[in-house]
């Protein structure tokens, strides 16, 4: 037995693998004494040699619902290039079916991504955790809280450090969390010194057991800014109640600019800048994310030197869900009255402008050197081709945003991909579909393996031999190159 061979434990065959060789599966190899999952291009070769794409629907059999066609948006047609990987054993037999070629080349693979993760946007104003706090799944660190965005909390999960840099449990937990999030499943995440949040792409977040319904239109201060003109002249004072920043029209910059006179109103809480108050109450599930049921409880007495009897006061929450209208009596105490018709519209508009709260999951990964080498002998040309919009990159048929700069680092919305489009390998790393679609001529120009492209293109040229498949209506058709789209 060679002392430099290693035993692979990826499956029960338990191959002894010599350095530089692969096991019986061709999927695992001995690279300088370490067991490694092979470079993606090997997988790529196979997919290409098979002559069509393998968009991986990595469904475990117990998940499989048994339907034969669960994914209607299967764009394929493909024609693959190939290399002569020495241990490769393709399917040498070919059985006819009703497929016609097209004059586009689609090089498709299951990319194996160690450099990948997800960016999660959670539409909620609730405090999920401090920036940089660790996010855990099954007690293991899988990511962190990153810079929050307007109306949303952001998490950055996965990445090479959690996948491969920590211990085995951390890598496995990270891989599982990413896989489930990318495949549209619900994942419970716990943030250190923060909330427990259930995240599922395209669904409302559940924060500490409470499901978010709507995103607020803005913070209290922003709401003042947005609606000041609509209120001006119809009401003397408006308080937008918000657990973060409560806004007061007459003191706010927007009110000042309109010439709204001082009203002598006094708010509890801490004044930040004019017209903006922090901590008017405790956090809660009532008015504007506070714990108050009576809006007047956040007001102190009106200043009798400024206020006047008959002063009209509107109090409203950031979602428009709660609102009340008051007029001051001779004692300068607010008395609730029916909301005048001319104010009802502005309250309704706040509601209209609130969007439903969602979780959004963007997969982000980088197509590395060897994956590109599977497409062309000159990998940088593929990168240039993507930049020049000659090659369309798709992820399971879904459009991607390719980051400027070097490499092919892209983001894609997982809800636009086929169900269960992602898989994993025990490395651990995520397996994501990635397709490069380009014209055959362009493929030749960038040094593609044209000699190995199956000759269906010549067939297609005899007529418009495009295969008819049903695409998702909200995705661009992958076989129309970005350059063509530009010309239109």
């Amino acid at each position, binding site marked *: 037995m060679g002392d430099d061979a290693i035993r692979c434990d990826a499956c029960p065959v338990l191959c002894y693998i010599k350095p530089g060789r692969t096991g019986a599966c061709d999927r695992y190899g001995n690279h300088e004494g370490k067991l490694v999952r092979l470079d993606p291009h090997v997988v790529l070769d196979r997919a290409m*040699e098979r002559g069509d794409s393998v968009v991986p629907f990595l469904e*475990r059999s117990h998940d499989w619902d048994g339907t034969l066609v669960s994914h209607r948006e*299967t764009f394929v047609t493909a024609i693959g290039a190939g290399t002569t990987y020495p241990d490769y*054993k393709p399917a040498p*037999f070919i059985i006819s079916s009703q497929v016609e070629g097209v004059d586009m080349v689609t090089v498709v693979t299951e990319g194996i991504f160690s450099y990948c993760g997800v960016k999660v946007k959670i539409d909620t104003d609730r405090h999920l955790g401090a920036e940089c706090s660790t996010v855990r799944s099954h007690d293991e660190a899988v990511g962190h809280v990153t810079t929050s965005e307007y109306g949303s909390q952001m998490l950055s999960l996965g990445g090479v450090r959690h996948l491969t840099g920590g211990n085995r449990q951390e890598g496995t937990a990270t891989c599982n969390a990413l896989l489930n999030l990318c495949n549209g499943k619900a994942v419970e995440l716990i943030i250190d010194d923060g909330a427990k949040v259930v995240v599922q792409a395209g669904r409302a977040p559940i924060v500490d057991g409470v499901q978010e319904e709507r995103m607020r239109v803005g913070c209290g201060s922003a709401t003042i800014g947005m609606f000041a003109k609509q209120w001006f002249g119809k009401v003397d004072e408006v308080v937008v109640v918000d657990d973060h920043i409560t806004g007061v029209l007459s003191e706010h910059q927007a009110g000042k600019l309109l010439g709204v006179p001082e009203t002598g109103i006094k708010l509890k809480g801490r004044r930040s800048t004019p017209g903006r108050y922090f901590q008017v109450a405790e956090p809660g599930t009532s008015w504007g994310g506070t714990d108050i049921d009576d809006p007047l409880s956040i007001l102190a007495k009106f200043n009798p030197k400024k206020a006047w009897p008959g002063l009209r006061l509107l109090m409203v929450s950031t979602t428009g869900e709660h609102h009340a209208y008051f007029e001051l009596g001779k004692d300068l105490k607010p008395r609730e009255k029916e909301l005048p018709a001319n104010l009802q519209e502005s309250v309704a508009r706040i509601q209209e402008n609130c969007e439903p709260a969602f979780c959004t999951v963007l997969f982000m990964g980088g197509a590395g050197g060897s994956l590109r080498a599977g497409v062309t002998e000159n990998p940088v040309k593929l990168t240039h081709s993507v930049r020049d919009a000659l090659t369309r990159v798709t992820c399971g048929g879904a459009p991607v945003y390719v980051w400027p700069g070097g490499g092919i680092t892209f983001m894609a919305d997982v809800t636009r991909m086929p169900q269960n489009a992602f898989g994993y390998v025990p490395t651990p790393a995520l397996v994501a579909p990635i397709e490069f679609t380009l014209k055959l001529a362009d493929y030749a120009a960038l040094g593609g393996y044209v000699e190995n492209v199956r000759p269906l293109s010549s067939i297609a040229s005899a007529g418009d031999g495009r295969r008819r498949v049903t695409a998702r209506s909200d995705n661009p058709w992958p076989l129309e190159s970005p350059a063509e789209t530009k010309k239109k």
Partner: protein
Amino acid sequence: MNSRAQIRFLPDGRRLHLQDGPMDLIVEAFGAPTQVEIAYRAASKRFETVLNELCSELALLRQPCTPEAEWPRGAVARRMVAATMPYATEYFITPMAAVAGAVAEEILAAMTSSADLSRAYVNDGGDIAVHLSPGETFVVGMVERPDRPSLFGTTTLRFDDPVRGIATSGWRGRSFSLGIADAVTVLAVRASAADTAATIIANAVDLPGHPAIVRVPARELAPDSDLGARLVTQAVGELTATEVDRALSSGGQTAERLLRIGLIRTAALHLQGETRVVGAMPELRTDAIERNLVHA
């Protein structure tokens, strides 16, 4: 539950892809949709345990096949031994030579025993088990070299013809070969039989002692290979026409023997651009390659 096995559809939504360890199968069934669904479920269920079954008897299956050898317990393993036993007295062969074909057969059997299918195939990395009901056919494309899938011809399998298994072997393939054939393709009554015969014939396409052939002991490449210290082909230099003819003749003689005793129906031997066909290749066509072929 075997959590390694990957079971998924190819993008056409019709063909099932089953992968577990070194097994990589493409399955397609034809028939009423409900029957196809039943068949795919049966294939998936059967597939999940196959690798564990095989590995539990792996040491035994790597031993040379002899008439006195102990029979394994597993259904797939028994198919392997049944396929290799006919060669046990005259050739060096281990049951592993039939593993791909035997797996394909087993999965196909799981499908056809549970569902009513007009046609079906299970393609295990080029070793294919086929099911045909009366009147049905499969058009099969053939490649000259496994690593360069370009078609050199097609053949048609019909219900009336007994061929239900197809396999290819050669030194360029994934498994080791003792010979120098680029590819030997065999049609036989079942996939495991075709798999074994392709291995035997490919081993026989050879030029012993030729200096342009690089041979390495199998165990130096894969320490646990069933071929042990036997020399396996790693490279073949350019051969003269006479040498190619001599090597093909050697393999051809073996193929003809196997044909005479009924172990194969057809063999196509390929070496450096030359092809020799032994037996009848049903409806062999090399003039016009069907334009609607796709890799199975």
